[in-house]
């Protein structure tokens, strides 16, 4: 019974013929990954430093950002940007929604990674730098952040992989990413088997490549 076999040869053939759809989706996913990764790292550093800033209001802003984005689902956040913001005349292309949505969400986790890493650097380091004439920001940038790299990178690597996986949320707002293409292609012809295997393999490769790259950065940070 060839029809009942989810991995029948002709289904793979159909997928190969439709490869452009999947390549298209993969390109969109990669664009969102790169954009969201950059955004989340910037947000993570800003809010991570804010989390240890010696000013109560700045600290509260950090807590509100982190707690809100860590404790509500990404799906709700992205659907909010997609569905609700146009009502108040904020309209964005779906690619940008993906970058902003996933970037903001992961940024909260990056901020916690940065904050935790900064706290692991002994306080005396800042004081010593300040006594040498550095101001707070110089001490942070030149002294504390480089030292916290070793603790920061593994935690950030985990979040970067979560980010790659979470870009699939775009499928829920017809974002044209890899998961969306796989879902709609296999939904129309029921060839789920090959579509899911190929999609899974693509995400797996992206995550694997990313964790290898960050592993390399970690080694460099140790020297």
């Amino acid at each position, binding site marked *: 019974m060839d029809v009942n076999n989810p991995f029948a040869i002709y289904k793979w053939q159909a997928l190969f013929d439709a490869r452009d759809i999947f390549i298209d989706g993969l390109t969109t996913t990669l664009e969102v990954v790169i954009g969201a990764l950059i955004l989340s790292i910037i947000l993570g550093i800003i809010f991570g430093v804010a989390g240890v800033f010696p000013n109560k209001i700045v600290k509260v802003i950090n807590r509100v950002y982190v707690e809100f984005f860590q404790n509500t689902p990404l799906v709700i956040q992205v659907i909010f940007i997609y569905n*609700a913001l146009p009502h108040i005349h904020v309209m964005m292309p779906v690619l940008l929604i993906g970058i902003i949505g996933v970037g903001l969400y992961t940024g909260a986790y990056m901020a916690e990674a940065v904050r935790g890493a900064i706290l692991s650097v002994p306080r005396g380091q800042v004081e010593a730098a300040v006594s040498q004439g550095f101001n707070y920001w110089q001490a942070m940038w030149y002294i504390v952040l480089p030292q916290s790299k070793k603790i920061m990178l593994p935690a950030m690597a985990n979040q970067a*992989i979560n980010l790659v*996986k979470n870009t699939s949320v775009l499928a829920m707002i017809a974002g044209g990413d890899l998961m969306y293409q796989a879902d709609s292609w296999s939904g129309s012809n029921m060839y*789920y088997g090959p579509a899911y295997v190929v999609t*899974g393999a693509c995400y797996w490769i992206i995550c694997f490549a990313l964790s290898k790259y960050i592993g390399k950065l970690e080694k460099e940070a140790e020297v």
Partner: protein
Amino acid sequence: MADLFEMNNFLFLMGGFKVTLEIGFFSIIFSVVLGTLIGIVRYLKLPLLAQLGGLYVDIVRNIPCLLCVLIARFMTPLPPTMSGILAMSVFTGAIMAEIVRGGINSVPKGQFEAALSQGMNKWQIVYHIILPQAYRNIIPPMVSQFTTVIKDSSFVWAVGTEELTGRSMILIGRYSDTSHLFVIMGCVALIYFMLNYSLSLIARWEHRRLIAKSY
């Protein structure tokens, strides 16, 4: 706006919240059990099982939750909620396995040897010596993973399972007004937030208790 705050709408959303809780509760239990079993077989280096466990973790940790949800819904004959539980359990099980492994690794090696010298077999050692100490160390990351399970359960709306997110989307579809949309989404976000924030507080409190205990 008054028409929004009806008992019917409230019960409708709560019906969805019940499904979210069901998926969350069972997925958490199954994934902790699965993660622990894999953690044990990898710790004891049981032939074949340890390799299979490692392979499972390496594969599932690098694929999206949504893919698990789609596979569980369309490639198994399970009903919607059950397929959601299966997907979330399999997906989270891989992460739990890594958390448990970290916990087991934090137990000093001498503990195993000391227990062995007392005549315990390896299963007794795992059960009585290793796991209790490992669990104590990993309660904070585990509980924060629970919040992720509850958040990620909203992915099952992609296959039409009516949990909290899905029900709120249906509700939004019934009203076209801007203010209605913002109120509904705000309420749903608040429900998730309260549940997850209480869990995070437990994780943080437990973390502090651990630090206080160990020094």
